[in-house]
């Protein structure tokens, strides 16, 4: 009985299917333009503000080194991707205008990075985040970056080790953890930073250096960060300051911190490698004054000692190195703090949130004027405890005789 009903209903369904319309949400995989990276810029065209949507689309036939592609005699020298830009009054319109330039439907689900142009960032990134959040095919794990300069040139830069630039960038973002001068930030985090009144947004920065200059290598560079206030870009952090911020927000994974040589002041620096770092932020109110205590715990190892004969296993040397290390870290943190408090007046550290959690009533009074009044004058005590655990494969530093 049920069986017969199923069969009849399937017939009915098929009739409806064929009668109502063709194929609805169906899209054949080969008719998709698989976008791997997106750049959004704000440009002026004929005096009008327009969004420029740049997409990097992979060409699967050239990328998939399979037989099917090879058999049909691929050119070989062609780039395996296409970068194309379109204009529109809104981002979505610009995205849709893409259809006027290419033969395939835009498919954004596999977008790995979204690069925001500097000009757009200064005007406000709310449209971009809104676009990403509302559109159902974007991943929430898409990485966000701010380009120094326009975003489209970043995507047009030649790919490095990977075949597609966007993939290159997204892998770089992950890889950069080993230096801790930049950090991966996914859309979800950016959105929650933006929505919180007690913390301001900060996005990693990407720089495209087309020409070499004074010994600086060319290519894409991933370091530093863009500081926002509300959703508007207010300035940049240098790589060191970025790490300073990362210490406080527990984002440091690894990296190299150079410290002076104990007992031998000079140009030479000992490298220490960060192996573990944690931090805690505790707000407290003493005598009606709000004080934030930041405590950073770091563990590291010695990487290279350019001081012949120095014995890193000697307790005094270790103690001194640890002191220097703590000082170096403290300096980075303070640099970041100073930038944020004095120059940008933007609470990128999320101190406001900690106050909110610990003193909800106090926070209620401060919330409105936090960034302008309270945060810049906030007393932040930074305590760093650094310890060196390992010295590597050798004992005393190599001494040529």
């Amino acid at each position, binding site marked *: 009985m049920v069986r017969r009903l*199923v069969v009849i209903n399937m017939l009915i369904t098929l009739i409806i299917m064929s009668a109502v319309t063709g194929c609805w949400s169906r899209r054949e995989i080969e008719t*998709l333009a698989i976008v791997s990276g997106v750049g959004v810029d704000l440009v002026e065209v004929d005096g009008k503000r327009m969004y420029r949507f740049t997409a990097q689309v992979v060409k699967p036939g050239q990328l998939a080194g399979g037989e099917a592609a090879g058999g049909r005699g691929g050119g070989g020298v062609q780039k395996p991707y296409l970068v194309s830009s379109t204009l529109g009054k809104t981002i979505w319109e610009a995205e849709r205008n893409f259809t006027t330039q290419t033969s395939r439907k835009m498919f954004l689900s596999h977008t790995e990075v979204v690069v925001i142009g500097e000009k757009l960032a200064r005007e406000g990134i709310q449209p971009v985040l809104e676009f990403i959040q509302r559109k159902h095919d974007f991943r929430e794990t898409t990485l966000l970056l701010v380009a120094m300069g326009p975003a489209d040139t970043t995507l047009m830069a030649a790919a490095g080790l990977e075949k597609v630039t966007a993939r290159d960038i997204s892998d770089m973002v992950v890889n950069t953890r080993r230096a801790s001068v930049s950090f991966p930030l996914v859309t979800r985090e950016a959105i929650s930073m933006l929505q919180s009144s007690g913390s301001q947004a900060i996005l990693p920065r990407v720089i495209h250096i087309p020409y070499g200059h004074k010994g600086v290598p060319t290519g894409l560079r991933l370091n530093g960060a863009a500081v926002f206030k509300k959703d508007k870009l207010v300035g940049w952090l240098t790589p060191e300051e970025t790490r300073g911020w990362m210490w406080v927000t527990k984002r440091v994974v690894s990296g190299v911190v150079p410290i002076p040589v104990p007992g031998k002041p000079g140009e030479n620096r000992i490298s220490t490698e960060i192996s573990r770092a944690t931090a805690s932020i505790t707000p407290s109110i003493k005598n009606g004054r709000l004080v934030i205590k930041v405590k950073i715990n770091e563990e590291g190892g010695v990487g290279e000692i350019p001081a012949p004969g120095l014995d890193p296993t000697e307790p005094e040397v270790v103690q001194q190195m640890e002191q220097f290390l703590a000082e170096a870290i403290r300096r980075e943190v303070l640099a970041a703090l100073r930038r944020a408090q004095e120059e940008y007046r933007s609470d990128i550290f999320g101190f406001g949130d900690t106050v909110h959690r610990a003193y909800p009533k106090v926070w209620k009074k401060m919330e409105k004027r936090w960034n302008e009044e309270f945060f810049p004058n906030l007393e932040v005590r930074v305590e760093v405890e650094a310890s060196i655990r390992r010295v590597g494969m050798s004992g005393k530093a190599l001494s040529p005789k």
Partner: protein
Amino acid sequence: MKKDGRLVFRKLVKPVKAAMKNVKKQNSRKKQELNPDPTGIRTWEQYELSACLEDNLQNLRAVFRDAGDFFIREFTIGTNEPVKAAVLFFEGLNDKKLVVDAILKPLILEMREIPPELWAKAPIRVIRERILCSTDLNELTEWNQVIERVLDAEVVLLVDGSPVALALGAKEWEARGVMQPENEATVRGPRHSFNETLRTNTALLRRIIKSPLLKTESLYIGRHTRTHVVLAYLERLVDEDVLAEVHRRLSRIEIDGVLESGYLEELIEDNPYSPFPTMEISERPDKVAAAILEGRIAIMTDGTPVTLIVPTLFVQFLEASEDYYLRYPTSIIVRFLRLLVLNAALLLPSLYVAVTTFHQEMIPTPLLISIAGAREGTPFPALVEALLMELAFETLREAGLRLPRVVGQAVSIVGALVIGEAAVRAGLVSSAMVIVVAFTGIASFALPSYTMASGLRLLRFPMIIMAGFLGLYGILLLSLWILIHLMSMRSFGVPYLSPISPSNYREVIRMLLMRAPWWAQTERPRVIGHQDSRRQVEGLKPRPPKR
């Protein structure tokens, strides 16, 4: 049995009518009128044998006229007062030597030693008790019995002056010996399989289960074929309700002939519209014995090695008899593998279609790119491609199945390798689709039950179509419909999906997910063998000897 017996002669009756009148004249004990029913179904049963040999033979010749293999050997029983007698049989169905040695020789040559007064009193009894050397002897008094026995390859002896016939079992005809099972091969385990002779099969079974509780009930089904069907089960273990249900369903069958157990299966199954089998089939005596030991019933049919086992649950189609012979850790892993395979055989192509045409975001980027690259330039949409490939695969399978074994292999090689490779190279189909379809095919072969695999194969096509129209949602819909269908199914009163649902978590683990080691299988599957649930004593787990 008699009830069925009547049906035999529907077509024979007309030519016999004249002869019947004769019989009627002779038979004064029976007072009934000749059956006015022109089909005369009841005709034979009402009449008993005549005492006159001539009349009987005349009738028989009429009944079996134009049957060239029917033989009547008339002879004279060699007593002091010679009596006419005749043996009747179909040639080729009996052991001729036995007929000569066990019937003709003693009757013709050795009768003289019988005291005449004894002979005069009850000739048939003398023949039966003192002359014939045969283990299988029956007295017949009715016509229908005589005809039935002769047709069932027995030798019937008629003696003049006696209204009683003797039937001798001397069946022997050309038959296949007990060979290796062809469809259910195992690495470990017994190698013999049932063959077409029912007696051999029951003997094989009896050799495994040497218990007086093992019952082998006989039924005869089929108006013309009179196929011998045996219900084998263990008394006290079998569920009486199920047994009664099997009886009820078998007894209502009225059909011309039963050539294979498939006839019975379709006539007695619970859900005739379902693509899922509700009866397990096997040609392995050990598997059937195992089923019987679980309290299930085996329905064995003469003329085919394939035995039906009822009731059967869905999960039992995922078991092979070898599971219980191999060491249990291996079997457990194999069970999990089969669960995967079951899903793959049903869902893989449709999942591929759904994911590549609706949910591309689910595919990891590198895979997406390689699939997209492979599909570039192929002419068909994924849905059509999948359907075509599945059809091609089914064609190949069917071709390989029907051809002689040597050619069959060639077909699969040509089909799979050459055509597949060429199609991919020519850009007609994408290599990803070939992989998917090929794996699905292999997955469906990896299922131990061929009938279950065929059912799944059937459902694969609607599944692909649903996936092509509604993506994962379509797959889910159809799966739900199938699930609801399975949920409402029963196999001879036992819910088909038990123990999954209605659920018994311990049984799920024991029957579906795990194969418990033998020393832990202290109970039979609860849903079937609950009449006597203990299988063995506790504490059989081997231990090192205590010192």
